[in-house]
């Protein structure tokens, strides 16, 4: 058991340090030691990424540290997810994500895409300034469970409202989550969005609640 605890602690540390090579190696080692994939995720990866998020909030971490932590988690998830072996979908959910049309500020969106991907979602990142029609077309194409749209400019926020209407209008089953610096929960509710997240870690929690399946984070 000591040995397993050490592997889990090392996995946590590899995520925190943003070391994707070590994270992948340790994920294999965890499975080799007979640690359940779910335990490796819940007791190794998740505490690591949560600690990275806490350090970001405290101003100790910056974007590069947070993103490399997410990339290390993704490397480990690629090994652990297929080993979950409990009949769950291989992906936690299918996501289409982008910044709304007219908005080229995509750091926050990229961070959310990275965290969702690290957490086991299949993510189609459409990039920045994505027209509403393309969000809808891609959502149809990939059978999206969730459409995520970021607006970093107050002038582009109204596009989120158009997106919600277009997704509903097309009769898609996908839920819609919105975010971005000027976006508030009140705004999200007023446009009829299904979810709102204030930061990338919260986005994962909200996405999981909205989609309701897959690996726990």
């Amino acid at each position: 058991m000591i040995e397993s605890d050490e592997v889990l602690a090392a996995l946590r540390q590899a995520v925190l340090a943003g070391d994707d090579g070590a994270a992948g190696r340790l994920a294999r080692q965890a499975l080799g030691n007979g640690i359940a994939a779910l335990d490796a995720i819940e007791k190794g990866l998740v505490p690591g990424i949560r600690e990275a998020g806490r350090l970001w909030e405290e101003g100790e971490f910056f974007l590069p540290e947070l993103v490399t932590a997410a990339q290390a988690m993704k490397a480990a998830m690629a090994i652990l997810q297929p080993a979950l072996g409990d009949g769950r979908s291989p992906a936690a959910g299918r996501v289409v994500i982008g910044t709304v049309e007219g908005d080229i500020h995509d750091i926050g969106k990229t961070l959310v895409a990275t965290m969702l991907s690290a957490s086991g979602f299949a993510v189609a990142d459409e990039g920045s300034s994505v027209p509403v029609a393309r969000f809808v077309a891609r959502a149809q194409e990939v059978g999206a469970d969730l459409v995520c749209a970021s607006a970093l400019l107050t002038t582009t926020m109204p596009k989120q409202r158009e997106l919600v209407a277009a997704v509903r209008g097309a009769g898609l089953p996908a839920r819609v989550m919105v975010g971005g610096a000027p976006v508030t929960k009140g705004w999200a509710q007023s446009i009829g969005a299904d979810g709102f997240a204030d930061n990338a870690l919260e986005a994962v929690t909200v996405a999981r609640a909205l989609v309701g399946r897959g690996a726990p984070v």
Partner: protein
Amino acid sequence: MRPSELAALLRHHVVVLDGGLGSMLIAAGLPGGRAPEWWNLEHPDRVAAVHHVYVEAGSEIVHANTFGANPVRLAAAGLSGRCREINLAAVALARDACAGRAWVAGDVGPTGDMLPPLGTATESELRAAFQEQAEALAEAGADLISIETMSDLREALAAVAAARTTGLGVHASMTFAVRPRGVFTVMGNPLVPSLAALATAGADAVGCNCTVTSTEMLAMVREAAPQLAVPLWAQPNAGQPTLTPEGVRYDADPEAFARDIAAMVAAGARAVGGCCGTTPAFLASVRAALEGATPR
């Protein structure tokens, strides 16, 4: 303006810059999703009108509509292969609009491509993009090159290196935020060491723009000015955006903004203006505050 001329100007005189351009173009009808650079070709009259009102408000350096006119960002805007054409058009219309009453700065913003670990761009790719834009701006007759809103010091340095080859005076600003442990860019580049690195790389003036309110930027100016050997620029936003039933508003009042700007000048800033959400009314207040008159 050669580097020595820009340095001398800022040493002897506090320069009033311009304010937000993109927000003014949106107010003039720029549709969502359309890159502002398109309007240098489609509606040069409307772009010129914005420059003109800033000059009327007292701006002495006006930024041409070239913030996104590097080849990487132009390609993303559907203007692939048109870097030279766009920069030439933007500077020409700005020079006409200013009619010798203000200098025209060639505006250089980030490419939008990220260096590792966030993206896969290389510093040499960014440098090449900035080189193409800087050469077009110089050919167009820009008086100086003004690099703005950089959040990655490596990208800012690539832009400075390219701008320096034109022989024009160069200003370089980054966008900082107040974090729990000090003032940093989102990438973690700290305020004073980053600005000092830009100066060492050959920027004739360095500074902060965008993201923060005038009150937050005042604190940054007070921290940085005593520690830097080159003139400091400051262009804060018009407060923070808020959502109202009528739409989105920036919450700053032009007179309070101008009081902060005057305090920045007292703290050592040598070129002052506004960024997102600021309008000619803000610049007129700044001008009045600096002249010791009652702001209108």
